[in-house]
C-alpha cells in the first residue's frame, strides 16, 4: 500500500514562515526605511486623486508635506482595467482646467442604448433620463490613460510615485496603530529559499497611510480583521468583468455610442450583462466587455466562455465582424454597494476607492465615487496631521473626519439611493427582479424606500456541488469573434519572474483536491480568466493535483473571492509582475 503524500504546493513565506525556516537562519532581515507624511497604496483613480488633493492642500497652505504613492504595476496604468463611461463631476472638482491640461477625455457620450438579448434576437429597452443607465454629460474613456495622466499631474505637484513597488505588509506601532507599509522582498526562489539576489523590501513610514488597492485588495483583507472594520456592514459581493479592445471596420464604428445588454447568454439567475463603448480617438476603437456576478451557482460556468460566445450573437457580432482584437483583460469589481461599505478609518489609516467599494452598480460606475472618496480622505488626512492640538490617543492618528465627510457627501446619497437594485435579484425573478425594481420602486422612490435588501451571504457560498449541476456545452472559439483562453492571456502582456514562490497561496494545500475538485469539480479551472489553475494527473497517474501557473495571473482577485473553500489567498508577487495593459 503506497502512502499518500500530502500535497505540497504553497512555498510563500506568508504560509511557510521564515522565522522557523532553517534556510533563512543567517539571512539579514533588516529593512531600510523612510519617513513621509502620507503614504498611498495603489496608483488608481482613488490613490491618484488623494495624492493630488493632498499636494494641492499643502501647496495652498505653503506647507512641506511629503506624499509617497506606491503601485505594483511596472508602469502607472498598467494594472487598470475598466469599461469606462466616466462621470466627470469629481474630475471637474479636482482639476477644473483638465481640458487645457490635456486630460484624455475625447469621447462625449452621444447615444445610449439598452437591450435584453435572447438567443437569436434583441429586445430594445428605452433609456429613460434620470434612471441610472442614462449617460448624458459623460465620456467614454480609456481609464488606464486617464490614470497615467493623473499620475503626471501628481508628479508635477511633487508627489513621489514609485511603480513596480508592491506594498506587501502593513507595519504597526507598538500600540497597534498603522505605521506604514513595507514593499515586497525580492530574490526568493520558487521553493521559498533565498537567492543570491535576495533583498528585503523597504519600509515606508507615514503619519497616515491611505489604502487604495482597488477591488478586494490583499492588505485591505487583513485590515478588516485587524481593526474589525466589517462589524456593521454586509460582506462585499462581486462580479468579474472582462474587457477587450477592438479595432472595428470603420463602417461599424459609431463614436460616442454606449450600449448595454442583459440576458443571453446568461440565464436569469446569473447576474450580469455586457457593454459596448465606441471611442473617438482616431482609430475605430471599440471597448467591449462582459460582467458576471460571482454569486453564480453552477460550478461549471466559465465567465470567460460566456463572454466569448456573447460576441457571436447575431446582433452583437455585427459590430465586430471584420475587426481585430487588440487587447484583453479581466478584473473583479464590487457589487455590494451601500450595504457592504465597511468602517473607513482606523488609527493611522483609511480606505479609499474600490477597496472599501463605492461602485454604483446599476450605473456601472465607480470611478467618480472612487476619486471623490480619495479627495475627501485627503482633506481629512491633511487636517488631521496639521492639527495644532493633537488629540490622538494612538501614536498614529485616525482620520475620523473622513468618515463624516463622505457620509455627508453626494457619494453616500448616490450609493444609498441605488442600494436595493442589485439585491432585488436574489429571488425567483433573478435579474428580472433588479430590472423590475429599477422600473418601479427606484423610479418612484429613488432609494427613499425605508427597507434595505440583503445580499444573502458571500459569493463563494452560492456554488452548488457539481453533482447537482449540468456541465455547460460551450461552442468552440471561431478565432474571428471568439477566442481561446491562452491566446487571450497572451494579449494581457502579463508576466512574472518564474523563479519566485507562487503568489496564489493556499492556506491548506490538500483542500483543492479533497474539496474543490471532489465536490465542485474544480471551479477555479473555469472562473480564472488567465488559466492559472489546472487539475492535472499526478506523476503516478493515480490521482489529480492542482497546478498553479502563477506566471499567467492578471491580478483580477476572482479566485480569492470565489474559491468555495476560501482557501486561496492572493498576495502580491515581486514588483512589476502582472499584466501590461495599455489604455484599458
Amino acid at each position, binding site marked *: 500500500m503506497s502512502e499518500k503524500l500530502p500535497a505540497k504546493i504553497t512555498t510563500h513565506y506568508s504560509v511557510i514562515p521564515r522565522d522557523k525556516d532553517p534556510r533563512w537562519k543567517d539571512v539579514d532581515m533588516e529593512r531600510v526605511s523612510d519617513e513621509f507624511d502620507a503614504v498611498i497604496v495603489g496608483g488608481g483613480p482613488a490613490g491618484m486623486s488623494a495624492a493630488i488633493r493632498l499636494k494641492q492642500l499643502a501647496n495652498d497652505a505653503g506647507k512641506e508635506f511629503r506624499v509617497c504613492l506606491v503601485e505594483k504595476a*511596472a508602469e502607472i496604468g498598467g494594472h487598470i482595467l475598466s469599461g469606462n463611461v466616466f462621470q466627470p463631476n469629481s474630475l471637474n472638482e479636482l482639476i477644473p482646467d483638465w481640458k487645457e491640461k490635456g486630460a484624455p477625455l475625447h469621447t462625449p457620450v452621444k447615444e445610449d442604448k439598452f437591450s435584453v438579448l435572447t438567443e437569436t434576437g434583441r429586445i430594445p429597452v428605452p433609456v429613460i433620463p434620470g434612471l441610472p443607465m442614462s449617460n448624458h454629460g459623460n465620456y467614454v474613456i480609456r481609464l488606464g490613460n486617464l490614470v497615467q495622466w493623473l499620475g503626471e499631474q501628481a508628479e508635477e505637484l511633487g508627489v513621489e510615485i514609485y511603480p513596480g513597488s508592491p506594498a506587501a505588509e502593513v507595519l504597526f506601532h507598538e500600540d497597534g496603530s498603522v505605521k506604514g507599509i513595507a514593499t515586497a522582498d525580492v530574490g526568493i526562489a520558487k521553493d521559498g529559499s533565498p537567492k543570491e539576489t535576495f533583498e528585503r523590501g523597504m519600509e515606508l513610514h507615514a503619519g497616515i497611510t491611505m489604502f487604495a488597492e482597488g477591488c478586494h485588495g490583499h492588505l485591505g483583507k487583513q485590515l478588516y480583521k485587524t481593526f474589525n472594520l466589517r462589524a456593521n456592514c454586509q460582506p462585499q459581493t462581486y462580479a468579474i468583468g472582462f474587457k477587450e479592445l477592438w479595432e472595428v471596420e470603420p463602417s461599424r464604428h459609431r463614436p460616442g455610442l454606449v450600449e448595454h445588454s442583459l440576458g443571453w447568454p446568461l440565464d436569469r439567475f446569473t447576474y450580469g450583462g455586457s457593454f459596448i463603448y465606441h471611442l473617438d480617438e482616431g482609430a475605430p476603437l471599440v471597448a467591449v466587455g462582459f460582467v458576471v456576478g460571482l454569486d453564480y451557482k453552477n460550478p461549471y460556468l466559465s465567465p470567460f466562455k460566456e463572454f466569448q460566445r456573447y460576441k457571436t450573437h447575431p446582433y452583437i457580432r455585427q459590430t465586430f465582424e471584420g475587426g481585430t482584437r487588440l487587447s484583453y483583460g479581466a478584473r473583479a469589481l464590487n457589487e455590494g454597494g451601500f450595504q457592504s461599505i465597511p468602517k473607513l478609518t482606523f488609527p493611522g489609516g483609511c480606505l479609499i476607492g474600490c477597496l472599501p467599494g463605492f461602485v454604483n452598480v446599476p450605473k456601472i460606475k465607480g470611478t467618480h465615487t472612487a476619486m471623490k472618496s480619495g479627495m475627501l480622505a485627503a482633506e481629512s488626512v491633511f487636517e488631521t496631521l496639521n492639527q495644532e492640538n493633537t488629540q490622538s490617543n494612538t501614536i498614529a492618528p485616525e482620520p475620523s473626519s473622513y468618515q463624516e465627510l463622505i457620509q455627508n457627501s453626494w457619494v453616500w446619497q448616490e450609493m444609498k439611493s441605488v442600494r436595493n437594485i442589485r439585491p432585488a435579484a436574489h429571488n425567483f425573478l433573478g435579474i428580472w427582479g433588479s430590472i423590475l425594481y429599477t422600473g418601479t420602486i427606484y423610479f418612484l422612490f429613488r432609494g427613499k424606500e425605508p427597507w434595505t435588501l440583503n445580499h444573502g451571504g458571500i459569493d463563494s457560498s452560492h456554488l452548488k456541488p457539481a453533482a447537482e449541476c449540468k456541465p455547460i456545452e460551450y461552442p468552440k472559439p471561431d478565432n474571428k469573434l471568439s477566442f481561446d483562453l491562452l491566446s487571450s492571456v497572451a494579449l494581457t502582456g502579463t508576466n512574472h519572474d518564474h523563479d519566485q514562490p507562487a503568489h496564489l497561496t493556499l492556506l491548506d494545500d490538500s483542500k483543492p483536491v479533497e474539496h474543490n475538485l471532489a465536490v465542485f469539480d474544480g471551479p477555479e479551472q473555469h472562473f480564472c480568466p488567465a488559466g492559472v489553475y489546472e487539475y492535472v494527473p499526478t506523476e503516478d497517474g493515480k490521482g489529480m493535483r492542482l497546478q498553479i501557473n502563477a506566471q499567467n495571473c492578471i491580478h483580477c482577485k476572482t479566485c480569492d473571492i470565489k474559491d468555495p473553500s476560501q482557501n486561496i489567498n492572493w498576495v502580491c508577487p515581486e514588483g512589476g509582475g502582472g499584466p501590461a495593459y495599455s489604455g484599458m
Partner: protein
Amino acid sequence: MGVLGPKMAFRVLVGCKRVIDYAVKVRVKPDKTGVVTDGVKHSLNPFDEIAIEEAVRLKEKKIATEIVAVSCGPPKCQEVLRTALAMGADRGIHIEVPDEEYASLQPIHVSKILAKLAAQEEASMIIVGKQAIDDDCNQTAQMTAAFLDWPQATFASKIEKTNGDLLVTREVDGGLETIKVKLPAVLSTDLRLNEPRYATLPNIMKAKKKKIDKKKPADLGVDITQHVEVLKVEEPPVRQAGVIIENAEQLVSKLREAGHIQ
C-alpha cells in the same frame, strides 16, 4: 618618486537600450511601417541589464572605478538610465535623438556615438548587451570596436581581469571559447554571464540624485543620417492547422494530392 601613485581610473561605459518589454505581444502598425510602440510597456533590454550588472560587479571587486550608463533616443530613454543608476551605475548620459530620427537610428550610428564617448570619457572598457531584443542586430559591440580599433570580446559568459588584460569566455556555436583581450576593449554580454540584481526601492530613490547629462549626436560630431530604409513590416503568416495522419498510406495519398510526389 613614491611607490604609491594615483589610482588608475577604470571607467566603464555601458550601453542601455529601451525596448518593448519581452512579455508584451507585439503588434504591427496598420500602415506596416513598423510596430506599435505608443502606450506599450517598455523596459531595459535584458542583455543590457546583464551588462550593467557585470559593470557593477567589477566595481564591487574594485576593478572598475566608475560606471557610466549611456542611452540614445527620445526623452523616455531616461527611464532605462534611472534603472541602470538604481542598479549601481554612477552617472548617466542621455544622447538625445527625437522620435522621427530615432525610427531610423541604427547600430552603425550608435557605435559611432559610443566610440566618440569612449574617447571623451577616457573609458577603459565598453560593455553592451550582445543584441537588442527588438532588432536582434548583434552589431553594436563589433562596430564600436572597429571604430575605436579596440579588441572585442563578444557573447561573454565569464569575464576575469588579469593584469592589463581581460580573460573572457565566449559562448560560441561549438561550445565555449576563452580568449585574452588587451584593455581597453569592447565586450558584449550573453545570457549566462550573470543574474542581474533587482533595482530596489531605496536604490531607486538614491538614483534620483545621480546625474544624467544630456548631449546631442551633433555635439559628438556624429551624423545620424538614415542609412537603412524600412520598406515594410508584416506579421508572420497565420499558422495553418495541421492534419493528423493515421497511417503511411494516408501520408502518401496526402503528399500526392498536394503534388509533392507523383
